């Protein structure tokens, strides 16, 4: 099974949705996936924050348009994409411990249910090194 490692550095919905599309596409191809949630991305993974839509990095003036259009296109939320990927293949999601602390999360229980644990940066670098495909978003 090929392995995809994603370094997720953004918690904005455009980047999260993009990551979710890649993950579900990779899941259809039976990739094993590891996602490492780094610094600013961790905010979206704090329990209760998964429905926030306040941040769009690219074209922020078009935030409302983008959200409406994604809904019109019947596109799953970023969180639903991540859940779907987990249904289809082996997906592990780790939160960088520093990133977690930045947003008030120190234990696995502080994060949304799809999170598998916390990690150090060394684990991410090893996973990136071992992957067949490494993407940083």
């Amino acid at each position: 099974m090929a392995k995809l490692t994603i370094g997720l550095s953004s918690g904005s919905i455009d980047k999260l949705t993009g990551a979710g599309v890649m993950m579900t596409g990779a899941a259809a191809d039976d990739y094993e996936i590891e996602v490492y949630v780094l610094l600013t991305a961790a905010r979206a993974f704090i329990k209760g924050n998964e429905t926030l839509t306040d941040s769009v990095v690219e074209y922020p003036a078009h935030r409302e348009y983008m959200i409406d259009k994604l809904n019109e296109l019947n596109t799953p939320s970023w969180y639903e994409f991540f859940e779907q990927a987990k249904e289809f293949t082996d997906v592990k999601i780790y939160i960088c411990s520093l990133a977690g602390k930045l947003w008030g999360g120190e234990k696995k229980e502080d994060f949304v249910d799809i999170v598998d644990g916390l990690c150090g940066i060394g684990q991410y670098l090893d996973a990136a090194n071992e992957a067949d495909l490494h993407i940083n978003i």
Partner: protein
Amino acid sequence: METSELNNLSVNKTVDARGTACPGPLLEAKKAIGGLGSGEIMELLSADEGTRVDVPKWCKKQGHEYLGTLEESGYFRIFLKKS
């Protein structure tokens, strides 16, 4: 396969994924093909141009046989045979 052959295919399962955008139809296909037996034929309906391109590549990687695509008004009928 020629258009006439595709039109006359005996399909074992039709999956209507016209309500979802990429990569939704691919996931619907992956989900449904598990319920088919070897050699059985699935028809995937999709309004997504990206899916039309992705399914033949996906079939090649997964070992299934891509049979062809018919273009209808506003959507595609994509045919594949399970390995």
